[in-house]
């Protein structure tokens, strides 16, 4: 049996796995990412990243789009996206489209 986790790189296209969803939490005034036994409170940037996981664009493409939109260095944005995506992947919250 293979214990190899699927590798995610800049060219990967991912989306939220079934059973993982974003919702508004009006009682606490925040946006949360819900998954089995977990609720993550996300800041605006994390929300933007999650919303960009459309199952069509690669992570590189998403970082480039953010760099243009927010007029920020692409390398730094790519690093932030990668860190957050890694955290979601370890928690089995992503589905790899390609």
């Amino acid at each position: 049996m293979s214990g190899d986790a699927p590798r995610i790189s800049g060219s990967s296209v991912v989306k939220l796995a079934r059973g993982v969803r974003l919702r508004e939490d009006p009682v606490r005034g925040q946006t949360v990412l819900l998954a089995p036994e977990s609720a993550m409170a996300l800041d605006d940037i994390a929300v933007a990243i999650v919303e960009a996981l459309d199952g069509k664009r690669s992570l590189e493409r998403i970082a480039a789009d953010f760099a243009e939109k927010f007029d920020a260095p692409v390398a730094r944005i790519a690093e932030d996206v990668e860190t957050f995506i890694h955290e979601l992947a370890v928690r089995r919250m992503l589905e790899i489209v390609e």
Partner: protein
Amino acid sequence: MRTSVTSAGDIARDIPRAPPPMAMLAELTHRCPLACPYCSNPIELTRANEELSTEEWIGVFRQAADLGVLHLHLSGGEPASRRDLVELTRAAVSLGLYTNLITSGVGLTGARIGSLADAGLDHLQLSLQGVSPESADRIGGYQGGYERKMAVAAWVAGAGIPLTLNAVCHRENMGEIDAMIELAIRLKARRVEIATVQFHGWAERNKAALMPTREQVERATRTVAEAREKYQGVLVIDYVPADYHSRYPKACMGGWGRVGLNVTPSGRVLPCHAAETIPSLSFENVRETSLAAIWYDSDAFNAYRGEDWMPELCRSCERKKVDFGGCRCQAMALAGDASATDPVCIRSPLRERLTREADALSTTQSAGLIYRGR
């Protein structure tokens, strides 16, 4: 552009006393086809004719969503024993609740799982009593149970519902943890929960038969650590270690009245599953009182919130915000005082006696299993 990500527990941490609840466990029924010796439900079960009706449950779900509950766990007994399970699921999902079904699998068919998926069920948690038909059906006390579980897992995967396998480990199956993890992967589960038996409710009667040995506990902890590394990104492994063999108590329920609440089949609202074992407390019912009033104002929920109730040993301890003094029901059961320091804490004066008792129980050869009556 740093992202801050916190777990459910962290959200509650910065809010003053009595934050809104995150999670609700709805014990839809106490009926169950299995007879597990480690059942943590009370000795005295609620009868079917006392259960909340469909409309009453949906009303409770609505109040829970308004109160701030994000996760709803549909549990029991066996929740599939309720004929209105699909209807209840649909109602919960429509209220925005993240809906998780905790089931033995017995009572579910391919068609019913399809209906649950259509109703929007977010996640399903399937219990496992062992990794072979012989061992699983012996512990569950139900012939054919294992086979049904394997079929259920395949239907769940086919319907696309995320799956967690959930196993209680104890002296008889502690050596099967590796095999449980392998089985979880084979069944396409994303998560596995391996929880060491806790001696609440019926399980207390089987303490001598189920108490793991110290050696088993140490081996299990190593096995889990290795498997977590090996399967990172493939399978999330949640493990509840044996607290009788730990240095510090568990942060039971994430703190009393702080993160979650339980509703019994007949509508009593409890701060935790076993809270009714504390004789000094009385519990209110959603048939008479609103969920919000019970959560914020009832004596039972306020009894062990914050630090005022704590003995000096806990109040002066730097871990009081880590484990909140441990488990109140365990303090009741082992110290005879629900506001005592949890006796599994190494700082508790009762700890040494408890260690001796646990070691003696774990080497009791003659203990047979006492099955839960049906």
